[in-house]
């Protein structure tokens, strides 16, 4: 039972990362029906930008862990958001109506980001600053760090903020309109390009947040970190029902927990297979996901 609880806690932490990244996949897919292959690498770019910020702040002798983390988060999220918009502008916008070409362009974007990070930063692992120790709330035998609490709570807050943004603001309404019918939305005077670009911006900021938090949590990052996590986050989005925002959150946490339990009870070597087996089973048995609506093949 102890193992199960402990793995549940770890699963919720990893699940928060998956959920944050899955939101980016699901929002983009919901609006332009594109599997944004490069999204996992956007997350990696966020982690690397955060690391640069920490290094810069250390040079400026700003030591307060809370202040540096907040600054690193905000700047990394902003820059990564712009990176996402840039990716959309260059690699996706001219190809919006060519489904196969845009997917291949997305693979190209993914490779470009990965090996761009490889060239700019390092081919090996880079170490993140240790700002938060292992200490945490005392809960019997459970090992929970304050960092895990922060990750979980702040992720939930961000997801809530996103929900409010999508359902209570004008731009959110435009996004939902676009997801239903792009042509009709355009006729209603919605600036389609701007709305798509904002979607990329939002998704990328969430991924950057997950990236910086991943760095702090695992204390090391690498230029290829986004590939596998990106695939799993996409799995999470499909699991919850692609295009569905609460679904992405549910799928992310569920995948994190299932994977952690599998690692705890079987072997961590097979951990990565779990996600893909879930993906295939879900796509075959219930392609619309847990919360998704029925999707009709568009002609």
């Amino acid at each position, binding site marked *: 039972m102890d193992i199960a609880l402990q793995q549940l806690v770890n699963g919720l932490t990893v699940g928060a990362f998956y959920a944050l990244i899955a939101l980016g996949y699901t929002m983009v897919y919901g609006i332009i029906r594109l599997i944004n292959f490069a999204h996992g690498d956007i997350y990696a770019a966020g982690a690397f930008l955060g690391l640069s910020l920490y290094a810069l702040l250390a040079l400026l002798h700003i030591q307060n862990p809370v202040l540096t983390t907040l600054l690193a988060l905000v700047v990394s999220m902003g820059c990564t958001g712009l990176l996402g918009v840039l990716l959309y502008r260059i690699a996706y916008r001219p190809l919006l109506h060519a489904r196969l070409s845009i997917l291949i362009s997305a693979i190209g974007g993914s*490779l470009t980001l990965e090996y761009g990070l490889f060239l700019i930063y390092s081919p090996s692992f880079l170490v993140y600053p240790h700002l938060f120790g292992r200490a945490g709330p005392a809960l019997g035998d459970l090992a929970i760090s304050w960092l895990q609490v922060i990750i979980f709570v702040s992720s939930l807050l961000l997801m809530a903020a996103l929900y409010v943004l999508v359902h209570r603001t004008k731009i959110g309404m435009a996004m939902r309109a676009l997801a239903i019918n792009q042509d009709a939305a355009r006729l209603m005077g919605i600036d389609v390009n701007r709305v798509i670009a904002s979607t990329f911006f939002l998704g990328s900021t969430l991924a950057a947040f997950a990236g910086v938090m991943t760095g702090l949590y695992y204390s090391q990052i690498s230029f290829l970190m986004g590939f596998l996590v990106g695939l799993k986050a996409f799995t999470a989005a499909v699991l919850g029902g692609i295009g569905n925002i609460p679904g992405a959150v549910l799928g992310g946490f569920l995948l994190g927990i299932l994977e952690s339990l599998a690692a705890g009870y079987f072997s961590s070597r097979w951990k990565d297979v779990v996600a893909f087996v879930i993906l295939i089973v879900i796509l075959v048995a219930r392609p619309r996901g847990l919360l998704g609506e029925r999707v009709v093949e568009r002609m």
Partner: protein
Amino acid sequence: MKALTTQPLPFHRLVPVAAVVLLAIGLPIFGTPYLIDVGTLVLVYIMLGLGLNIVVGYAGLLDLGYAAFFAIGAYTTGLLMVRYHVAFWLTLPAAGILTALSGIVIGTPTLRMRSDYLAIVTLGFGEIVRIAATNFTFTGGPEGVYGIPHATIGRLVLRSPQALYWLGMAFALVVLVGSYNLARSRLGRAWLAIREDEAAAQAAGIYPVYYKLLAYVLGAVFAGVAGSFFAVKLTAINPSSFTFIQSVTILMVIILGGMGSLPGVILGAAVIIILPEALRAFDRVRMLAFGVGLIVLMLLRPQGLWPSRIGQIVKRAVALSEARAAAEIAAGAPTPE
């Protein structure tokens, strides 16, 4: 259509064909062992490209885990030859059957889905195969299978670069002729119809799932055969040859060349293998250039370097009939044909 496919090749189209044939024959005679080895690798990617071309180019299904079938073929031959001392030629049907079976198992449930979901499932399948090969002990774990014997024909051991080259050439030619005939068969026309308009194809009595499955399984078998050859060529295989990047590289072969086009696949394979070899000095930026190249190619020339003639003919015919219809409307009176 018949008149278009049976007319003799005009001179300007004969020249590149003759050049390729001369180069292919001259290389093993005059080339250094290194060059011959590069040539053999090009042949492997021609086989892989032709197989994936059936799936993506003919049937229009995006497969991002194609390296999995390549791996299954290579491991089948490698394991049978090393562990059970089976002769190479007998491992070929085994590799074919195993890849066909895995193609059916993974294809049957997934080919009904949206095309981009299929891309992800195949990607997941590719990763599962690679992780399984790394984790199982009977596949040799991360070290893989080594000490794979050479292929033999009677007493002749195919060990030298030249012998491997000719073996590869024989395989590639069989696959090439097979692909050529498939494209012009009833099957090929069914695939073309599904790719261009699935609903219309279905209305015309073509059952899409069946034909898609056939394309998927045939593509898998082609990759399996390429894998068998790959195993006896390298005499050692390990999971690192069968990554996602490998699948993308094979995809790149057909996209670069032009989807559905056989000369395109050959050109694409040559460029994909020779260009990185020529750029060895710039090893650090190779993958970056690859990624940027994919985007640029999609933006500037999505039809590839040597696009399919069949695709062009269809497009031209559609454009012509549309223009004629527009002209009729403009003329105000429909003219009977």
